[in-house]
Structure formats: C-alpha cells, structure tokens
C-alpha cells in the first residue's frame, strides 16, 4: 500500500473503532435495557471535552496553547489517565441526568427529557464562551504518545492499535454484562418493567446502571476521537448526531453486538465515506442534507421491513448447544426474552 492509502485506511479504522465503541455503549442502553437516550451525543462530548481540557495544559498565560482559547481547569495528565478521567466525568454526569430522565415516566416523556438535557448542554457551552471556548470549540489538542512513533504514518498505526485496545476492553465489558444475570435483568426490564419489578428487580437502579455504563463508554469514544482529530466544537455534537448512532443500531440489529458493529460501520462511517466518492453536485450543504435524508429513509425502511435489524438479536434459549459448549455455569443460558418479545420487535 502506498503511504496515502495507508493513511486513509488507518483513519477509517480509527473512525470505525470510535463509532463501534459509541454504538455498543448506546446499544447497552437502547437495545438491552430499552432506554431511549437522546442525550447520548452529549456524553460523548463530555468525554471529549474532558480529555481535551486535561491534555491542553493549564489555562495560564505561559501556556502557548491556552492563549488563543478559553477553557476551565486545564492540566496535562499522562495519556491513559485522560481517557479514564473522561469516563469518570461521563459517569458522574449521568447521575443527575438519570435522576430526572429515568424516573417512572412514559418512555416518550423520558425521551423528551433527554432531548432537553442535550439542548441545554449545547446552549450552555455555546453561550458561556469562557467555559469551553463556546462556538469556536477547542483546538490544537495534543496527540497522546506522539513521541513513541517516528513517522506520522507510524503514529497512525499506533493509534489504530490504541483504538483496538479500547474496542476490546469495551467489548469485554458489554459482553460480560450481557451474559451475566445482570444482562438478563436488563432485558427483562426492556420487555416489561412491571413484570421485572414484580419479580423483585429494582428497575430504577438497574436502568441507572445501564445508563451510567453506556454513558461512560460514550465518553471513552469521545476521548478517543478528540485526541485523534485534535479539535472539538459544539457543531460536532448537535442532537441529530444521536439519531445517526440510533439509526446505526436499528439497521445493524439492536441488542446484537455483531449487528451493532455492522451498523456502526455502515452508517456513520460508510455513508459519509461513500458520499466522498460521488462527484460533487448541488449547492453547499446539499450532499450533507441528502446524507441525513438517506439515514432517515433507512431508519423508517428498517423499522417497517426489518425492525430487528440486519443481524437480529439472538434468541437465548436453554437448549442452545453453542452455549452449553462454552460454559456450564448453571443458569448461564436460561431463556430470558418473553415469547411475545420476538413478535413485537422493538416495541415495549
């Protein structure tokens, strides 16, 4: 491969990894637990801003990076710490929002509450320019571990490696949750809140748990992305971006890790890259608009023709041999989904 191709491929791989991580995080909430988190992109942004502020250095006169932009609480922490801090901020932010949005409201009211939170966050960040540099956003964010690679291309491959490490860790976490009794409880809540509550599950705290973990994963994806692209501004996390991730999950197949992976590669990455190869036509913004329209059409088409996605959620049954091969823990493969759930698709 020529250098240019390698550069392109590595960039795509990094974008793909970020998108898959984010979609897995959202799927833990949407697919497994049935939370319609319209504020998801805000948690990704929270992670990104945290990682940016923690690597830009202190916001004092002597720091050349902070002369052109304003931000609070600057620091330069060593590499993986910034990502962990991002995850922590994502988790801490989830609690107050979860208290408002996850109360026992109808799911459409919950969705509205999330949407509002996302809008408030955008308004605050744009209006209060001293906080995170307002509409302009943060830029010149240092790349982590830049010195460990000699060439720019070498660094690209290094970052692909870093992304894959995070991808593997996130997959391990969500796969564990999904396989554990916890995952079964989450799916039970998705199918019927009242039935789960009647069986003694603490619905609110379980939903909160899924909400917090999903948002931590979102924050990690944001941190990973911002340290690669080096800038972050409110235009990158307006609320329709959440719809793109949701669309990816619906197309891929909610509550199926492989399906979500395929969706994450097809929608956010595939469509924007596919459009790149089209001859340019229309006025400014036309191609972007068509891209979003296409996402809308795909969402509705899949909801109608294939509501369970390209790779539907696997039916977990007791007698599935693939399960009994791997682990013989009692209860690991007990049927979870209630029969009606398969017929209903996403409903509930």
């Amino acid at each position, binding site marked *: 491969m020529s250098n240019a191709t390698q550069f392109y491929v590595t960039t795509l791989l990094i974008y793909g990894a970020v998108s898959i991580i984010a979609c897995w995080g959202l799927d833990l909430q949407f697919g497994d637990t*049935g939370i*319609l988190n319209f504020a998801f992109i805000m948690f990704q942004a929270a992670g990104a801003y945290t990682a940016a502020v923690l690597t830009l250095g202190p916001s004092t006169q002597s720091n050349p990076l902070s002369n052109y932009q304003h931000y609070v609480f600057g620091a330069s922490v060593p590499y993986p710490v910034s990502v962990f801090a991002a995850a922590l901020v994502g988790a801490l932010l989830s609690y107050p929002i979860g208290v*408002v949005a996850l*109360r*026992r*409201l*109808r*799911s*459409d*009211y919950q*969705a*509205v*509450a999330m*949407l*509002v*939170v996302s*809008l*408030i966050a955008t*308004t*605050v960040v*744009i*209006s209060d320019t001293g906080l995170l540099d307002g509409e302009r956003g943060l830029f010149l964010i240092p790349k982590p571990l830049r010195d460990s690679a000699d060439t720019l291309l070498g660094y690209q491959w290094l970052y692909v490696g870093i992304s894959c490490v995070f991808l593997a860790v996130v997959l391990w976490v969500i796969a564990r949750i999904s396989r554990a009794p916890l995952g079964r409880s989450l799916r039970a809540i998705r199918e019927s*809140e*009242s039935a789960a509550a009647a069986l003694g599950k603490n619905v609110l705290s379980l939903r909160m748990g899924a909400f917090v973990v999903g948002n931590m994963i979102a924050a990690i994806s944001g941190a990973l992305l911002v340290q690669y692209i080096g800038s972050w501004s409110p235009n990158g996390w307006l609320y*329709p971006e959440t*719809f793109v991730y*949701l*669309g990816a999950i*619906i197309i891929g197949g909610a509550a199926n890790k492989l399906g979500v992976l395929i969706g994450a590669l097809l929608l956010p990455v595939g469509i924007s890259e596919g459009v790149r190869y089209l001859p340019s036509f*229309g*006025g*400014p*913004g*036309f191609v*972007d*608009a*068509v*891209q*979003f*329209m296409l*996402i*809308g*059409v*795909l*969402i*509705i088409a899949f*909801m*109608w023709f294939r*509501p369970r996605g390209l790779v539907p959620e696997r039916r977990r049954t007791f007698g599935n041999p693939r399960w009994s091969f791997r682990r013989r823990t009692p209860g690991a493969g007990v049927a979870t989904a209630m029969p009606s759930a398969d*017929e*209903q*698709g*996403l*409903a*509930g």
Partner: protein
Amino acid sequence: MSLILPTIGFSLISASILALAAVGFTLQFGVTNILNLAFAEVMTSSAFVAYWVNSRGISIWIGMLVAGLFGAILSLLINRWLYRPFIRSGTRLFGLIIVSMGLALIIQNGVLAITGPGFFTYDQPHGLAFDVAGIRFTYTELAILLIAVVAMAAVHLLLTRTRLGKAMRACSADSALARCSGVPTARVVDIAWLLSGALAGIAGVTLFMNTTAFSVTTSGDFLVVIIAAAILGGVGDAYGAMLGALIIGFATEFSALFLNSAYKTAIAFVILVVVLLIRPQGVRAAFAAAREVQT
C-alpha cells in the same frame, strides 16, 4: 420600568406564536398519543411554502393560508402513509418515536437540500407602529396577536360547541372508551392531524415573520419549547397549552431582562425539566387526573 412594558409586548407575541404551535401539537399528541418529533419540520416546510408563494409577489397573508393548507395536508399524509400503517402492524410508543425521528431527519434535510443553508426574509408590510396601552406594536406583531386570538377562539368553539370537538376530547381522554361509545376514532384522528398541521403551518409562518431572517434551522430548537408548553399545560389539553404558552412566553422574554439573552430558550428547557420532575401531568389538575403519564 421603561423596559417592562416593551417586554410585556414581546412576551405577548412570543406567547401567541407558541400558543398556535403548542395547541396544534397538543391536539394531535392528545388524540393519537404519538410524540411527533417531526412537528417542527412541518412548521418549517410550510413556512417555506409560504416563502415560495410570497416570492411570486403574492401577499404573505395569502402565503400563510397556503402554508396552513400545506401543513394540514402534509400532516394528514404523514398519518395515513406512515404512522397508521406502523400502528396497525403493532409498533408501539417506543418504535413510533424512532419513526418520527427518521421522518424529522427526512423532512428537515429535504427542505435544506431544496433551499440551501442561506437566510431568507418574507416580503411583508413594515409600516406603522401602533400604541396599545403604552406598548408599541408593529403592524405585523398586531396581526400575529390577532391571528393567535382568533385561532384560539376557534379551537375553543370547536372543542366545546361541536360534536366533533366532543369526540376529539373523548378520544384524547380515553381512546378505547371513545371507540366503544361509537366515536369514529380513525376519522377523529385524521381530523386531529389536519388541524394540528394547519396550526403548525400558520405558527411556522408567524414564527418566521417575527424573526429578521430565517433559515431551515430557525425552528430547530423550537420543538422543545413547544413540547415544554404542551407538557406544562398537560398533554392533550388545549387550554393548558394556551396557558403553558403564556407562561413560557413571559418567562423566556422576562428572563432576558436579568440573564444573558442567549439563555432565553434555555429557560423554557429548564421549565420543562422542572415540570417533568415535579408534575408531569401538567398544571391543570382536573384534566390531569384522566391521563396516565407515569408507568
């Protein structure tokens, strides 16, 4: 003191626009129980139809009528071709929100693809300002106020004086019971969509008339303000929505006296969060008793 009177004027105008939209939103939400995320997009597309009419040299008032008609038909078609088939195939609340989200993406970006990202203005009469009780209104503002009052009165008469209004209130309170009592619910739902679309179209035009220049994204965040007014008043309750519009109109405009005016809409969002926390049934208790918003 000098700022208070003009602020009351601004508040009344904001409240009028918001009331038109919120009543339209709440009528449809109440009767069908679908959270229509594409409502603001119906407003935008209708307002651009009015712009197209207006740019042909026809008065903006005619344009507003055309926009109302367009909004009504668009909403009806959305119900017939999109929501109704989905409901019949067994999609429930959760899935319908996602469908409406996809629809919002399609309409918003469809309009964007046609109009481009630029800013537009209506060719509207500028002319005189009038003094009403010490508050200065422009001709356009007075007209908006008048349209809102007439529309609210019409909705009031429809809901209280006609059989259709009675049927709509019945569907809103308990759709299954209404069907059992012989109300043709499918037709009532269609009419609710028509009415809500017409109000959305008119509200869209008034919203854009009241801004100096508008673009496709002007009404983007407005949806949440509408939802705030509707939920504050109690979903499905037209009078509640009017009250909610008044409260939010005054709260947002008066907040600009004390706060950075960039936070104007954020005040509406904060009100919505507080209402969802404390009283998701809305402020009007009698109506709220019939509705189930907490699972």
